[in-house]
């Protein structure tokens, strides 16, 4: 399908790190079923390093591909490196996304950040709230 690049199709058809993680150190879920996409990311963190990552996604081809790519980009990285991953980088790594699908990459970035925020909260680590998605008061998804 010409709608998506070969890289998107590859990550969609053969998603990396798909599945659930038992006893994750941080879990982040963003999106809304009403809008048609929800991403959930699980992190295993040891010594500030993301040792393992899994995702579960309800959504379209680009949502699944964005989740898969984002997990590949943060695996083995430090928390700081993972926090620096932007949706633009996810899009570039995928070789581009159609304009109306760019929000899928935003969800991927936010899902990673939400999972790290959850890890911080669990471990009493302080952080700057303004640098993380505020899922309780999200205005970007109008169905919420």
């Amino acid at each position, binding site marked *: *399908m010409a709608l998506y690049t070969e890289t998107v199709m590859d990550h969609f*058809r053969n998603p990396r790190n798909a599945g659930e993680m038992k006893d994750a150190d941080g879990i982040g879920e963003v999106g809304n079923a009403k809008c048609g996409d*929800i991403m959930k990311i699980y992190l295993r963190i040891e010594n500030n390093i993301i040792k393992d990552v899994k*995702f579960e996604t*309800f959504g379209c*081809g680009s*949502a*699944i591909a964005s989740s898969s790519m984002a997990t590949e980009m943060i695996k083995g990285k430090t928390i700081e490196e993972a926090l620096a991953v932007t949706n633009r980088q996810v899009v570039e790594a995928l070789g581009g996304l159609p304009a109306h*699908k760019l929000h899928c990459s935003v969800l991927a970035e936010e899902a990673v950040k939400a999972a790290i925020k959850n890890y911080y909260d669990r471990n009493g680590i302080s952080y700057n709230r303004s640098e993380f998605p505020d899922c309780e008061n999200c205005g970007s998804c109008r169905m919420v």
Partner: protein
Amino acid sequence: MIYADNAATTKLSVAALDAMMPYLMENFGNPSSLHTMGQKAAEALQEARETIAVCIGCSPKEVYFTSGGSESDNQAIISAAETGRKKGKKHIISTAFEHHAVLHTLKKLERQGFEIELLPVGSTGTVTAEQVEKAIRPDTCLVTIMYANNEIGSVLPVAEIGAVCRAAKVFFHTDAVQAAGHLHINVKEQNIDMLSLSAHKFHGPKGAGVLYAKTGIIPVSLIEGGAQERGRRAGTENVPAIAGMAAALKEAVANIDINAAKVSVLRDRLIAGLSEIPHCALNGDPVNRLPGNVNFCFEGIEGESLLLLLDAKGICASSGSACASGSLDPSHVLLAIGRPHEVAHGSLRLSLCETNTEEEINIILAEVPAIVKYLRNMSPVWKDLESGKRKFVL
């Protein structure tokens, strides 16, 4: 490859192609030209007009050629509205699940001061003649209600609706784009004043359609610039496509009962098989249904992913999910029959025709459940449904 998207478009029939070829090649003349070649093209138009008139039970002079269903819908609605405006009648009745060619035209008229009343279509997706009768007012100038729904396949009681409109002396237009060539049409017996059809939905070519307008209704020209179609539609006629459309409709109508019987058997097998998938539901009227339409919602998954994975298996289908259509909301048709957003995103339409086979149905019935299961396994929504954190709707 298995083509199960015949409601989107169909393959050109050999009869249609044969009818088109002479007007693409040796007789390429303009029907408005006076020379012999032009007049041969004009004769082809006349023959096509007569053929189509026989197929839908009207007079040839009531047949106007257009570029397709959308143009016909636009022209029919605007024409009736213009007539109404002159008489001070500005109320139009339609339904919530019409094609956008109808709904967007009505929106435009609403901005011009018309009052648009969209009847609810209930959970099976239909309206009754009684609903229409109750909605008609002294200032109603048009009732426009589709013959069959393009997404969920419900077939509406157009003859009864037509009778109610006739009794109230209100114009009745029906978008018969999904019905033509698949369901019997007789505009006289069914009390239809205006009707839209599109060639490529019954194995004709793309880019040709018909607006039938009963004698006495004068279509308002949407395109100015020539005397074609008796001044009601300027522009050199698409002669090959019109010839192909007539041949395709003639063939479809000649085989309408045989095809419907064959296709509905395949449809019913598909519906029965897919119904076994847990937490799914058939969309549309289970009884009064287009012979080739199958439309399901599967809870916990999103339709575009399903389509892409089916495509990878060589199966062509459609979905009413927002992502599949490139909009924010899922299908207005699925919302109109009461499916919540999150369920409407997980829809799948398979639309069959007479060339589909039992073997193809077997393949679809093997692939769809496997793909639904695969997508549910990676869906956090499905996990929440299974754990009870979220309540099942289906």
